[in-house]
């Protein structure tokens, strides 16, 4: 291939669906910080959109409708939720943050952003503040000195959404930040590549076992610095820079 990257071709293939999972993940991670790529994707969605007219429709099972209506009942919309519950949830969440030794003042700003995506009362919502780990060591219980928060991760196990908001992360040329779910006595689960400058929504992971709130109870979320596109192996290959434990938010 030539040096010049075929952004149009990549965006076109992304929309078309012919990329592998790894390639899709790379594009997903990159589109947030690469305007040219993002607008090329939007243009291809417009161009190829009419192809859907060709696809024969199919009636979904009737019970699906009720299930969906039940789920949206539990999934307040970002703006609606925000107006109604921001103050309340923010206070609540600050306590969690304080208990975790986080810098509440910095977090207040971040939390405002993160909370927009979180239902207030869902017991399935978790937030983790990822801070610089001491010299790449795994955090222990002693609560040693940690750096300022670098990323905030909001997880909703019911809506199957993972939102990663960078607070003080720095773009490193030719390197990617990769998020991992680390459970004691289990292999780390790669959750995806996260952008250092804007919020990234990650696809729900393909763990063999479905990820439930329990899967996060004793877990640590960690971000490692990897070669561009992520670790070539199933485990972090670069230094683990940031980590934090998810805490449930919004429980009644």
């Amino acid at each position, binding site marked *: 291939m030539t040096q010049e990257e*075929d952004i*149009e*071709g990549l965006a*076109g*293939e992304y*929309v*078309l*669906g*012919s*990329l*592998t*999972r790894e390639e*899709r993940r790379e594009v997903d991670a990159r589109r947030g910080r690469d305007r040219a790529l993002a607008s090329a994707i*939007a*243009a*291809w*969605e*417009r*161009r*190829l*959109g*009419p*192809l*859907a*007219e*060709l*696809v*024969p*429709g*199919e*009636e*979904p*099972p009737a019970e*699906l*409708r009720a*299930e*969906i*209506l039940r*789920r*949206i*009942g539990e*999934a*307040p*919309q*970002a*703006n*609606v939720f925000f107006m109604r519950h921001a103050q309340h949830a923010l206070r609540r969440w600050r306590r969690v943050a304080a208990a975790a030794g986080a810098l509440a003042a910095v977090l207040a700003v971040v939390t405002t952003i993160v909370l927009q995506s979180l239902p207030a009362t869902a017991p399935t919502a978790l937030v983790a503040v990822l801070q610089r780990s001491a010299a790449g060591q795994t955090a222990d219980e002693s609560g040693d000195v940690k750096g300022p928060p670098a990323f905030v991760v909001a997880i909703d196990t019911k*809506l*199957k959404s993972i939102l990663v908001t960078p607070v003080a992360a720095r773009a490193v040329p030719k390197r990617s930040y990769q998020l991992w779910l680390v459970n004691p006595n289990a292999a780390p689960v790669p959750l995806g590549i996260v952008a250092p400058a804007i919020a990234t929504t990650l*696809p729900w992971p*393909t763990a063999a076992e479905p990820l439930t709130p329990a899967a996060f109870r004793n877990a640590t979320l960690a971000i490692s610095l990897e070669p561009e596109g992520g670790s070539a192996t199933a485990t972090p290959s670069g230094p683990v820079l940031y980590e934090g434990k998810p805490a449930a938010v919004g429980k009644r």
Partner: protein
Amino acid sequence: MPASQEDLVESLSRVARGDKRAFEALYAATCVKLYGVVVRILGRRDLAQDVLQDVYVRVWQRAGEFDPTLGSPITWMVAIARHRALDEVKRKTMRSLEDMPELLELPDTGDPLASLEMSEQRRRLQACLDRLEPDRKHILSLAYHYGLTREEIARRVNRPAATVKTWLRRSLAQLKDCLGP
């Protein structure tokens, strides 16, 4: 029954304000199409049902992001559905094509009734697609409708994956030239 585009735009803007009735109307008007799209990509109805649920939850949450000046509601919703379905289907490292028994039959583009119902945009797209070599058109279709990767297409058409990539990229470039920005 198909709702008009104006109806869908109206429904979506009400959904963005949290109107559940509007959401139900939107679901009724679009679920047949979206389910058809995800079933085709996933080739499994059980998975398609899970994916469809997620898709509508996302539509509910993101309705406020829809911008009618950038496209039609159905295109926006189909894009959400395809994105979610493609993420799901790519999880399986190697799909056997036999996983998709009755589904792997491409829609008949020659159906005169179908062309009667064609939208103007689709007519333009079809005209541009028809300028491609038939085998190139075929592989574009395999990718779009079934989310087949280059390797999967390569096995199916018995060509090296690198050739398939070249074909896809060239066809896309030709399409872009033909359709414009």
